[in-house]
């Protein structure tokens, strides 16, 4: 584990226009090939941190470096939103093709890459469907295919499966793990589910709220991740440790906030 840092956050602070301090003094270094989860209660700034890494938000203080450049300049970054965020007027094929189209590629040039991305998520047969014809899980898979079509080095996911039912979520968890392993990606995954973060990640960053900050940085045990892993004692034990770490951040938080 001596790869250089792919993402560096140093003394990052974010204060919104209305004065809310969303994130205070966040320091973090993520190496290439890691699967890092940001775990925390709502309002802990985990999505804000992710958006700043993507370059969609400007930090009010500190610096963020991605792929050796300032966040937002790097390219080679893909983002998966909480809802699938598909264009309802475009077919699945055109939705997945969007990043390539914005780079100036024509339909014929993009075809092979789009089909490969659709193949990764098992939606080859639905290329000509419209988003409204798909289930929630399928829409999310289209969204992942769109993120993967540019072969990014870094995949950012903002609570992507929060709105899905458990069975679909488990299936998509495995899909993402497989993509991570096969494509050699770095993944930063925002979630509020302890079980999801422990199952997926090589490292869990536990965050606290008011103001948003990093409280714990926990490495996860290595080993195969599959349906069997969910039932092992080690998984249960890790979940317990992470849950305790998370609860430690919520002492002063009113449950009705």
């Amino acid at each position, binding site marked *: 584990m001596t790869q250089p840092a792919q993402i560096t956050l140093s003394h990052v602070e974010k204060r919104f226009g209305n004065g809310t301090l969303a994130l205070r003094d966040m320091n973090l270094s993520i190496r290439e090939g890691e699967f890092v989860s940001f775990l925390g209660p709502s309002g802990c700034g985990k999505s804000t941190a992710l958006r700043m890494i*993507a370059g969609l938000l400007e930090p009010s203080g500190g610096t963020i470096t991605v792929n050796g450049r300032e966040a937002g300049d790097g390219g080679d*970054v893909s*983002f998966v*939103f909480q809802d699938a965020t598909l*264009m*309802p007027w*475009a077919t699945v094929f055109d939705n997945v093709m*969007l990043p390539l189209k*914005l780079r100036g590629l024509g339909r014929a040039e993009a075809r092979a890459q789009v089909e490969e991305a659709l193949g990764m998520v098992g939606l080859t047969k639905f290329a000509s469907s419209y988003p409204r014809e798909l289930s929630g899980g399928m829409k999310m898979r289209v969204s992942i295919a769109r993120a993967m079509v540019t072969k990014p080095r870094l995949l950012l996911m903002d609570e992507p499966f929060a709105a899905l039912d458990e069975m679909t979520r488990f299936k998509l968890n495995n899909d993402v793990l497989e993509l991570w392993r096969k494509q050699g990606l770095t993944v930063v995954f925002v979630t509020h589910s302890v079980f999801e973060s422990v199952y997926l990640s090589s490292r869990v960053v536990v965050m606290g709220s008011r103001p948003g900050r990093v409280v714990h940085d926990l490495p996860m045990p290595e080993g195969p991740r599959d349906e069997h892993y969910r039932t092992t004692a080690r998984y249960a034990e890790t979940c317990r440790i992470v849950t305790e770490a998370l609860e430690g951040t919520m002492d002063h938080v009113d449950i009705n906030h």
Partner: protein
Amino acid sequence: MPVAITPTAPSADPALRRARQERRLRLLLPVCAISFALLMWEFLVWYNEVPHYLIPAPSLIARTLVENFGSLMGSAWFTVKLTLMSLALAISGGVALGMIFALSRPIEMSLFPFAVILQVTPIVAIAPLILIYVPDTFWALLICAWIVAFFPILSNTAIGLRSADHNLRDLFTLYRATPLQRLRYLLIPSALPYFMAALKIAGGLALIGAVVAEFVAGTAGQNTGLASRILESSFRNEIPLMFAALFLVSALGIVIFLVTSWLSTAVLGHWHESEIKRTR
């Protein structure tokens, strides 16, 4: 104990038959209702011996329409030209200004009051002034009709261009879309449902504007439309001709409505909720 499960899913055949039947009813019922109303009208006029200068029978109106076909068609063409040109101007002007509004808040805040003033002041009240200032009657009428049709296009285009999903906007930012790409692939498709709704309204309003303006202008011009024919025949007490011209005006309105509705379905039918038929 084994339970026999009968398939509850309806087979395709009855559903198809029902759909066909509904389509037939959709055409048949209005046609029957209108025919019945016309027959009643004809019968009541004949039975009560109503003089034709009060209420002409449909048959007389039809005959008048055929006898004056040439001149009525000339007037209809004038009205069609006026309506379509004002609609075209309203679309180009409304879309252009709507885009500027969507791009710049300060410009919108400065200019929107003017648009509202034009919209809320009744066209009948502005028309005499326009007729004084604009020497050419056709252009004066065109401006009147344009004012009426312009506002819905403007406001809906401005709202529609702003209605693009925020996450999709972020996605376009992430992939460094150029402003033109953003407009073409995100803002315009997002605005289309709003624009189509405005077009349906503006189509009808352009016709109303054209007719009202012509009423205010009277029969001043040489080349006059259906509204002046209605006025002219009312002065001469030619009631059947009035009805014939009126019939053409509503026929025109119906055609505009059908065309804009068809266009809306053609453009949005494959994706937008408003045009999708749900199966039950």
